[in-house]
C-alpha cells in the first residue's frame, strides 16, 4: 500500500501505516479472538474458526453483492458462523470425541464450503462497509487513508469490555465460567454443560463470522481464496497470550494487527529487503508466544480448568 505521498512522509509514514494497519488488521483478530475467548471460557477449543472466518468472508461478500447492503452481509456472515458453530458444538461434545480433531475437520469443511460457493464472486466487486473518516483535518491522502476507521473495529473495541463485564456480572457469564472450570461442579448446581457449551461455541463462531466479514468488506475488501492470513488459527494463540481476558484480547489483537502491518509499512518507505521476513512477523510472534507460555513446571494461570478435556 505505498504511494508517493506516503513515501514523502518518510518514517512518519511508516508509523502512520502501522497505526492504520493495527486497526485494519486487528479487526479480524479482535473478533475471532473474542469469539475463541468466549468458547474457551466454557471449556471447548474451537480450531475450526479458520473455516468459519472464510465462510463469513465469502457469505458477507456474496450477500453484499447480491443485495447491495454490506450490513446485511455482516449479519449473514454471523449467521453462517452460528451454523458452523452448531455443528462443532454438537460434534465435539459427543462421547470420546476430541476437540482438536473436530476443529481441524471444521477448518477443511468451512473453507471448502466457502471456496465452492464463492467461485462466482471472485471477479465482481461488492459494496464495502462505510468507514468513518477521522482525518478531515489533514490534506495528506496518506494520513486520510490511515485514519479511516471501520465501525466494525469500534464495535469490536466496545465488545471487549462488554464481554469482560459479562463474565463477572451476569448469570450467564458465571454459568460459562463454571462450566469451563469444573463441569462436575456446574452439574451439581443444576447447570447443563452441554447447553452452555453449545451456546458458547455458537456465539463464538458468530463473532468469528463477523471477523471474516471484516476481511472481505473492510480490509482488504475483496474476496479471493487467499484472503485469510491464518487469523483463525492464530486466534487460539492470541487467547492464551491474553490469558483468557477479553480486555487483553483487545490489546493482543492490536499487537498482532500491528505485526501484520509491518511488512507493507516498511515497503512503503522503500525497504524491500527482507520483505518475506517482515510478513512472517505475526507467525513468528505466535510461535514465540507459544514457546514462552508453555512450561513443564507450571500450569497456566487463568486457563479454564476443563479446557480440552474429553471427559465431561
Amino acid at each position, binding site marked *: 500500500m505505498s504511494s508517493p505521498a506516503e513515501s514523502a512522509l518518510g518514517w512518519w509514514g511508516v508509523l502512520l501505516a502501522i497505526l492504520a494497519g493495527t486497526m485494519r488488521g486487528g479487526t479480524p483478530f479482535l473478533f475471532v479472538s473474542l469469539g475463541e475467548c468466549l468458547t474457551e471460557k466454557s471449556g471447548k477449543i474451537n480450531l475450526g474458526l479458520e473455516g468459519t472466518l472464510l465462510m463469513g468472508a465469502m457469505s458477507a461478500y456474496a450477500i453484499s453483492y447480491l443485495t447491495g447492503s454490506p450490513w446485511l452481509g455482516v449479519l449473514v456472515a454471523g449467521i453462517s458462523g452460528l451454523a458452523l458453530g452448531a455443528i462443532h458444538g454438537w460434534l465435539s461434545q459427543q462421547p470420546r470425541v476430541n476437540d482438536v480433531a473436530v476443529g481441524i475437520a471444521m477448518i477443511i469443511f468451512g473453507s471448502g464450503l466457502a471456496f465452492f460457493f464463492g467461485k462466482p464472486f471472485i471477479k465482481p466487486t461488492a459494496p464495502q462497509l462505510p468507514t468513518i473518516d477521522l482525518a478531515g483535518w489533514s490534506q495528506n491522502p496518506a494520513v486520510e487513508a490511515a485514519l479511516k476507521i471501520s465501525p466494525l473495529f469500534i464495535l469490536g473495541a466496545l465488545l471487549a469490555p462488554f464481554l469482560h463485564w459479562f463474565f463477572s*456480572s*451476569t*448469570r*450467564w457469564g*458465571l*454459568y460459562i*465460567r*463454571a462450566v469451563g*472450570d*469444573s463441569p*462436575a*461442579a*456446574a452439574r*451439581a*448446581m*443444576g447447570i447443563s454443560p452441554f447447553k452452555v457449551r453449545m451456546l458458547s461455541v455458537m456465539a463464538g463462531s458468530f463473532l468469528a463470522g463477523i471477523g471474516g466479514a471484516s476481511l472481505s468488506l473492510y480490509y482488504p475488501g475483496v474476496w479471493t481464496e487467499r484472503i485469510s492470513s491464518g487469523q483463525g488459527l492464530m486466534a487460539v494463540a492470541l487467547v492464551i497470550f491474553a490469558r483468557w481476558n477479553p480486555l487483553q484480547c483487545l490489546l493482543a489483537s492490536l499487537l498482532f494487527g500491528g505485526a501484520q502491518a509491518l511488512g507493507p509499512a516498511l515497503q512503503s518507505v522503500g525497504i524491500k529487503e527482507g520483505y518475506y521476513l517482515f510478513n512472517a512477523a505475526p507467525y513468528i510472534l505466535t510461535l514465540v508466544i507459544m514457546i514462552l507460555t508453555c512450561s513443564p*513446571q*507450571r*500450569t497456566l*494461570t*487463568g486457563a*479454564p*480448568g476443563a479446557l480440552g478435556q474429553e471427559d465431561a
Partner: protein
Amino acid sequence: MTTTTAAPTATAVRRPPELEVKGMTKRFGSLVALDQVSLHLKPGTFHALLGENGAGKSTLVKCIMGFYSPDHGEIEIDGTPCTIASPRDAHHHGIGMVYQHFTSVPAMTVAENLVLSRFDGSQFLINWAKERERLDDFMQSSPFQVPLDVPIAQLAAGQKQKLEILKQLYLESKILILDEPTSVLTPDEADEILSLLQQQVKAGDLSVLIITHKFREVTQFAEEVTVLRKGQLVGHGLVQDLSVADMAEMMMGERRELKVVDKVTQEDVTPVLEVHDLSANKDNGLVAVNNVSLTVNSGEIVGIAGVSGNGQKELVEVLAGQRPSTSGQIKINGERYLATRKEMFKHRVFSLPEEPLKNACIPQMSVAENMALRTFDQPPQAKGIWLILNAIRQAAKGLVQQFSVKTPSIETPVHNLSGGNVQRTVLARELSSEKINLLIAANPCFGLDFAAVEFIHAQIVEARNRGVAVLLVSEDLDELLELSDRIIVISSGQFLYESPIASADFSAISHAMAGH
C-alpha cells in the same frame, strides 16, 4: 474462623419436611446397587447411614437427590409422593447435599460460587452491591464463616468443606445430606462442624442425614441409624439402643473380632531411608514440601498423618520419582537416591501409591503385564531383548492365587477390575519379591471394603516384621494409630509433630494437623 451459634433470622423458619424412601431399587447393568431399600427421615433428627464401601449408601442418596433415577421405589415428602428427576427438583423440596468431592468452581471466589448456586433463573444481571449485602448478612448469622473474596482453589480443604455446608444453608435447604463430610477435616474441625449442625437440628431448623463409616460420629451425634450392606437394608434403630458391636455386626454381616496384628520387636536397627531438607513444588509452582527431613529404620513403620492437600502427595511423588525436588537429598542405605529404575532395583525399593490405577498400573495392559512391571527386564522373564511371555504368565498365575486377586483371567485389562482387586494386583507385584528394603505406601486402603483393608494391613505389618522399612502416608488417622511405630504430622509442607506411638498425644496430633 470464629464460630457463633445461629441467631434467629428475620424470615420465618420452615420446619424441615419428613422424608420417606420406600422400596428403592437401582441397577447398573448387572450390578444391583440398591435392593428394596427404605429409609425414614423424621423432621428435626440427625440420622446416620452406615455401611462399608460399596454398600450402596452413595447410590441411595444420589437417587434421593435426583442424580440417578431409580428403577423402582417411591419418595414421599411430608406424606405426598413426588418424583425427583434432577438436583433442582431436590432443592425445590428443600433437600440439599454436601458431596465428598468438592463441587465448587475452583477459579471463582466464594461469593461468586454462593451466588451461582441459587437457582432463580429469572435474573440476568447480578447486582453485586445487593448480593454482597445479602451474603454479608448470611455470613453473620451462619454457624461458621469463610472469607468471601478468596478463590476456592486457594482455600484449605477444611474451609472448602465448610463452604459446601454453608452453600446448602444459603440455599435454605431443610434436609441436609452429608456424604462422608469429615474425611478431609482434622478431628477438631470435624467435631466443631458436626456439633454446630447438631445444635441446629436440636433447634428444629434442620434434618441431617450423614453417611459415615466412623462409629464415633454415629454414637456422638446421631439419634437414629440405618445400616446397608451390599445394597440391602440390614438394620435400623435408635443409636441409644445399639452398641458399636451391634452396628459393626450389621455392617459386616457377622460378629467379628477385630484382628490385632502382632508386632515383633526388632533386633538390628539400621537407617534405610534418610531424607535431608527436601523441598518440592506443586504443579502451579507454589511450594508443597518445605525443607523436611526424616529417617525410616529397618523393621519400623513410620506414619505420616495429615489432612489432604498439605504436601504429602508431592512428598510421595518425589520419593517415587514422579516429581523433581527443588532442593535437598534423599539417601537410601547411605547412597544418594534419584529414583531411577536401576537404583530402585539395587536398593529394593517398592511402593504402593494412592490411586493405584493412575499411579501404579497401566490401565489398558493386562493383569499379567502389570504384575511383571518390576521384573520384566530381568531373567527369567527376559532373555537379552526378548520377553519370555510364558514366564510372565506363570508368575502372574501364582501371584493371583497367592494374593486372591479376583479377575476373570490374567489377560484381562487391569482397569476392568474393582478398586480392591487393582490394589491387590499392585500389592502382589510389590510385596512378592524375596528381598524388600523399603516400602512406601500412600493411602493404601482408600475406598476398600473391610476384608481388603484387613488383608493389606496384615501384609504391611508382616513386611515390617520381616525387617522392611515402611513409610506409610495416610489421611486415615485411625489406620496410622493402629499400624505405626512412629508418627509424624505434616501440615503446609512441614513436619509439625513427631513422636513414637507409645507416647503419642492425640490432641497434640489434632492440633498439629490443623497447623498449630
